[in-house]
């Protein structure tokens, strides 16, 4: 049996929880003060995911870079690949907020979209 320690982030209480895992299955969650904690623990053990943010180069723009984000959370262990694949991306103006900058980034099935607009200089 493996015990995973984690802190719930859903409210300022920050419950310290211990999740007991056996054969990839959660068998016990302890330390949470409400059902939301249990939900969070399940999510974090079974499929932890995060929105990834970065900037990409912008050619002939009024800005040297524009900010981007993944449209949906991507699996936590894929964050590095997502960031690395953005390093070579260069966009051209005009860019509007919400424009797709990279489709299916690093094979995650998630698009990277612009969070800032840019104009041609």
């Amino acid at each position, binding site marked *: 049996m493996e015990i995973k320690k*984690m*802190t*719930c*982030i859903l*409210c*300022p*209480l*920050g419950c310290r929880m211990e999740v007991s895992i056996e054969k990839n299955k959660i068998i016990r969650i302890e330390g949470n*003060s409400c059902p939301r904690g249990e939900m969070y623990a399940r999510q974090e053990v079974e499929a932890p995911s*995060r*929105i*990834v*943010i*970065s*900037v990409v*180069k912008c050619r002939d723009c009024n*800005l*040297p*870079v524009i*900010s*981007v*984000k993944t449209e949906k959370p991507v699996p*936590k262990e894929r*964050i590095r690949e997502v*960031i690395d694949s953005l390093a070579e991306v260069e966009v051209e103006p005009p860019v509007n*907020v919400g424009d797709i900058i990279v489709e299916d980034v690093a094979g995650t099935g998630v698009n990277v979209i612009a*969070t*800032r*607009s840019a104009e041609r200089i």
Partner: protein
Amino acid sequence: MKAESSSKMKSRTYDMAVIGGGAAGLAGAVKAAELGMDVVVLESGERIGGIPMQCIHPGFGNFYYGENLTGPEFSERLIEKVKLTGIKCYTHAHVEGIRHVSDTENMVSVVMPAGITQIRAKTILYAAGARERHAYEIGITGDRVSGVYTAGEAQTLMDIYGIMPGKSVVIIGSGDIGLIMARRFALEGADVKAVVEMLPYPGGLQRNVVQCLEDFGIPLLTSHMVTRIVGKKRVERVILAEVDESFRAIKNSEKEIDCDTVALAAGLVPNIGKLREADIDIDSSTKGPVVNEYMETSLPGIFVAGNALAINDYVDYAAEQGEQAAIGAHLFIEGNMPSDWKPIRKGENIRLVFPHHISGGRDVKIYARVKKPVRDAVVEFPEIDKRVRKRAVMPGEMIIVNLKKQETAGIDELTLRCADGN
């Protein structure tokens, strides 16, 4: 300064001059324009949008827009509205002084590329944000070398200009800004050696401790302080020490961390220099102006919002305060500003509370911070039997209490307190 000559600007009287084109200023300008006021925005930077433009992480707009946006997305929505309402915005416009000529006339002296000019306005919304505390304010000594940035400066370099400030980084301060910059550096491939915090617990939200530090395996050194920065031309290392309960370095606890960059996230202070010169009343706990529920300062017709008023947890609050200020400025111009104000006082375990005065004539939102963390807390105004239960309150997380008009009618004063609920 292209469209109008400075002489024309001089003769014109604006209803409201907004100082600062960030979230508070733009939200206030838009609201004022919607109320039919003639508004001008004076922004000292290259572009309007303010600090959220460089805060590219999500967590903005949950209250104001009911959506989780990144900083630039939040600001772009406001900028869009500014464009739609046709509000005049001057960038590179540095406010050099404010003169309260009379209760219906203010002169704002502005330095712009076209020269120095005077802008006349019936009201002012001062929304100049905050400044970051620097190394010398938190007792760090050592060599004056390159590679020492405030967290905000590092963020500007990375997320506005696309420049990496360094490769191996020590972050000083574990407030949300410090935590978020730790993640930002780590995401872009820097080696974040440690986040150093003087207090025995992290200053930022639990969520950020988990998602910014634990996700990336970044060490958090609580009860530690950096005492010295060492290097020849560039930062080479920092010297740190453990601290005792009164934040004094413990002897023989010193150690070194090699790094080429130090990012200081040592807190924000309302940027109110020009208001101070105008001799307004300051609250020593918020370090910002004393205001009524319309965010009006002790000088009639001069309003303040956002981080210039008090350091807020969320940009949403800054925008809301800007709107309240615009509503107030509109009332002021119409001659309908209430004159009878009731004080809101700080009671048990309350470090700060604002607005400082309310009219009792409308719904009002009270912002506060506690001194010490409390579990199962009761936040209350005993005079009116108003009680709000909270599972936990922390100094780092603002408490919001919404007071209804009928709850505050007929009161003389109110005291906010926060006690243990058990």
